[in-house]
């Protein structure tokens, strides 16, 4: 358990550093150079290292951060990160994730790609739900 708290400290630092770097990158290179989603990359790297219950909280919190500042409607990143946190469980059973190893890199990459692919689907789903409710 203590190990998880230490990892939480690392993931928090990594996400904050990524958020800081996004501003630095955007200001340094100007509007014509697209800024990579560094916070999402940091989360994809750290998320496979946690058990499911931790992943959901961490993923949801980072999703909330991305939704608060990001372009999409609020809720898209939260839903995507929750799905990604659940999907990691499936990946973990296929490849043994050792920190920094090939398994971990594969899971992190799969998670990043899944999250990026899920974003427009999540956005469309939220839009559809909004139209349905209104």
């Amino acid at each position: 358990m203590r190990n998880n708290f230490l990892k939480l400290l690392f993931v928090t630092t990594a996400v904050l550093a990524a958020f800081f770097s996004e501003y630095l990158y955007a200001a340094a290179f100007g509007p014509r150079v697209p800024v990579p989603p560094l916070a999402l990359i940091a989360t994809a790297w750290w998320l496979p290292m946690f058990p499911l219950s931790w992943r959901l909280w961490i993923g949801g919190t980072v999703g909330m951060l991305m939704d608060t500042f990001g372009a999409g409607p609020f809720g898209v990143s939260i839903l995507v990160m929750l799905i990604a946190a659940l999907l990691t469980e499936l990946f973990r059973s296929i490849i043994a994730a050792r920190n920094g190893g090939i398994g971990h890199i594969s899971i992190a990459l799969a998670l990043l790609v899944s999250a990026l692919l899920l974003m427009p689907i999540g956005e469309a789903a939220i839009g559809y739900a909004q139209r349905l409710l209104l």
Partner: protein
Amino acid sequence: MALPSFILKRRVRTVVVVTATAFFLLLVLARSTRPVSSLRMAVVRLLAPVASAGRSAAGYLTGVPRDQVRRLEEDSKMLAASLAEQEILKKENQSLKRLLGVQEDIPVESKGARVLAYTHVLGVETLLIDAGADRGVAAGDIVIDEHRLLVGQVTETTVGSAKVSVASNPDATFSAELVPLGGKILIKGLGGRGLALELIPYDTPLRDGDFVLWADESRSQGIGTRVFAGRVVKGISSAVGAFKTGRAVLLADPSNLGIVLVLTDR
């Protein structure tokens, strides 16, 4: 009878998983309510120093060289000297604006708002402003800067804040007019402050340096809401049938805005 520890652990884990899922789903479903809005504002305030530090660090890294500062100081003096000429030009400008049909005063209701955050990820620029649904701001409202240049459109509102998508984002489309030679066209955002000018009638003249005026018929009809959006940088790039296309750049600089105006149209 006490439960075995592994069953107890599994139950605790299940409760935590269900609680986390329920909490975040509730956040999504109740995103427009006051508690969720307050939570979002708290996140913005909490991370504002990090964002500010990022911008400061970028300013330090891309700092203007000393000799350039001296040249800028010289330029500043020259500008001060030309202030006298400005008054004459202002009068000339006013008469030209009247001729072009540009409204000097915007008659629609506008609400001032502070920019809380600016983000730019994957070519999509977003502003977070401190005026929300409680002040009458709604999705679709137009946002301009203090010089009346088009910044973007409100995409989402909460109690106390709103999200603004910059007009040059890839999903943005709006109708516009060319100034000074006239002609209605369609504008599409390209990302990175670039605007694609489309559906320009073949006989409409288009020159580099001309201006693009945002002119949404549904809004501007009868209320005269007209604001400058961009400047043509590439007159004719291709011609397809009866139409030709071009390129323009957004005049506003959303990354350096402190205050914006929201045209609420109500």
